[in-house]
């Protein structure tokens, strides 16, 4: 009936970089020529509460919010709280969490979001150099090397 839409939900707690990760991901998908929509709620969540962001891409995306049972990839940055989104997943959907890489190898715990994008990158057909180019746009130069290392840690884990 319609061209396939891929649905990615990034979830965690306020302050973990959920919104930053979804912004990077959606900008990359946009630059790769997809129709992209991203939806989230700001506000109270920045006080350490639960937060999630939906990124949908494909030929033509209609609603910016992922319908129930249609999440293809759940990037769960704080499994204790964000694994609850598993109820919204499609059968056979993939969960990505910090357990997928050795977080102790990160220069800063703040880069967990970027490392998780590295894991996600293995499932999306986009060259590594494109990910790294877009990542650089979203961080000051002094953090480029650390973020590249975090991304590769996730991608190569």
């Amino acid at each position, binding site marked *: 009936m*319609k061209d396939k839409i891929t649905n990615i939900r990034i979830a965690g707690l306020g302050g973990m970089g959920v919104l930053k990760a979804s912004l990077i991901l*959606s900008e990359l998908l946009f630059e790769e020529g997809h129709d*992209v929509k991203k939806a989230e*709620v700001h506000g109270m969540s*920045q006080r*350490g509460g639960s937060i999630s962001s939906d990124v949908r891409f494909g030929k033509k995306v*209609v609603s*910016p919010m992922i*319908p*129930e049972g249609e999440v293809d990839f759940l990037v769960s940055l704080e499994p204790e709280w964000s694994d609850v989104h598993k109820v919204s997943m499609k059968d056979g959907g993939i969960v990505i969490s910090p357990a997928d890489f050795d977080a102790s190898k990160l220069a800063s715990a703040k880069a967990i979001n970027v490392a998780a994008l590295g894991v996600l990158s293995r499932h999306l057909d986009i060259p590594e150099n494109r990910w790294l180019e877009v990542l650089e746009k979203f961080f000051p130069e002094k953090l480029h090397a650390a973020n590249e290392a975090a991304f590769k840690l996730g991608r190569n884990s």
Partner: protein
Amino acid sequence: MSQITRKLLSGNEAVALGALHAGCALGVGYPGTPSTEILEAFSILKGNAEWAPNEKVAAEVALGVAFGESRALVTMKHVGLNVSQDLFFTASYSGVQGALVAIVADDPGMASSQNEQDTRSLAYAGGLPVLEPSDSQEAYDFTKLAFELSHRWQIPFIIRTTTRVAHSNTIVEYDEQSAKPRPKANFNRDISMRVMVPGHAKPAHKRLRQKFADMLKWNDEQGPNQIIEGKDKKLGIISSGIAFMHALEAAPEAGFFKVGFSNPMPVNKIKEFAAQYDRCIVIEEGDPYMTTLLRAAGANVEPREEKWRFGEFTVDRAKAQIAGDLSYETPVIKQKPPQLCKGCPHIFSFQPMADMGCIVAGDIGCYTLAAMKPISGMDMQICMGASIGMGLGLRKVLPEDQARKVVSVIGDSTFMHSGLTGLLEMVYNPPATGHVVVVVDNSTTAMTGQQEHPGTGRKLDHSPTNQVSIEAVAKAIGIQNVETFNPVRDNAKFSEYLKEKLATNELTLIVLRQPCILAAANLIKRNRGQ
């Protein structure tokens, strides 16, 4: 030569870009989720953007700009329209000469608000035309259109967004060359048009209703509405805003009338559309605004079940409404509630009051989270600035032992927004037991993401300006005791002082000043002038 640029933008960023390209001379507002980022984005685009002390002042400034034949944007969340309503409900009579566009961002589902009122219902009452974008492209297009229509009909326009339009990123295509220069400002005296005494307001009301008749005709004939013919004529859906996107995904085979200009509603056009379908329903977020107007006009649309008034729409809810499934409930996903940050000065400010068993009339900001466990230190919160008046009212009727425990607590930005008139009441009609106001001053508008206000001494872009002193204002108004403490370092002194003043019949204002810990690093940089 036109050159199309494509960008992935949030609805708020798209509004800012649209205003810039419409020749907007000034953007003014008060921060409020989900509208805050519009003026910040406008400032980054080199637009002239300012935070006003509150939405009413913002709207007044914007109207002045429009009276000067120039173009103004005013931004606010839905409840900000209540604050500025006094201005808007008569500016619709006076009209404008340049252009005035108000972006009012609704929060259905109340992600970060105290109610889920629907701006369309207020705009209907006030005679204010409304456009409703469904994505960032329309947020851009409709903002430009609103400036044109405001100028054409000489009336303030409202653009109603909702959370998922304001805070969703979708692709926007625009032509940089289409940007208009700012019109030259000029004042032409016309007393009968702008001084709304009864003799002038009576013909002005008739002019307003004539404008609505003209706009209705235009909207029916060529308004920014869209018809999508259905595969068959079984189901027709009338929708607007983000609800249209959910409904279109839920029922791609149905016929659609997408309303872009919803006050005045293109009623005649919708009636023609609805008459072609066996069954027609309205899918709209918030009040049954379109449903009610269409049914009153005799259109072939079903009444809406009360269930669909509450909360945010989704694709699944749209499917349930279409199926008439009243048992549908949006799955509840367990959430970690927001809380005050570790080390937040508000924790130190509220704990002594909770320990003393104070009855705390509270206000709106991060510190409202002090109402939650473990502090449970706030007893009421309704709207911006209400802490002071509510506290005074309690003091006036409660038995003395209870009255002496009442404290009003308000944040620094909220104090600037609407605390001053409460202080006037306190001095003018003091309760027999006196009163204590505590200003929890973290030197920023923290809840919405660290915006400046008149007390910070910095403008929207963080450049320095005059700084308003809470203490000096309180003394000038006539509060007897005005004291300042650091709630973290001088916690015991604060407790002692509060206890002492609660026992007197005097009027006291205590400022508890310690910067927000999230803002602290930025504040140090800004104070150094970096």
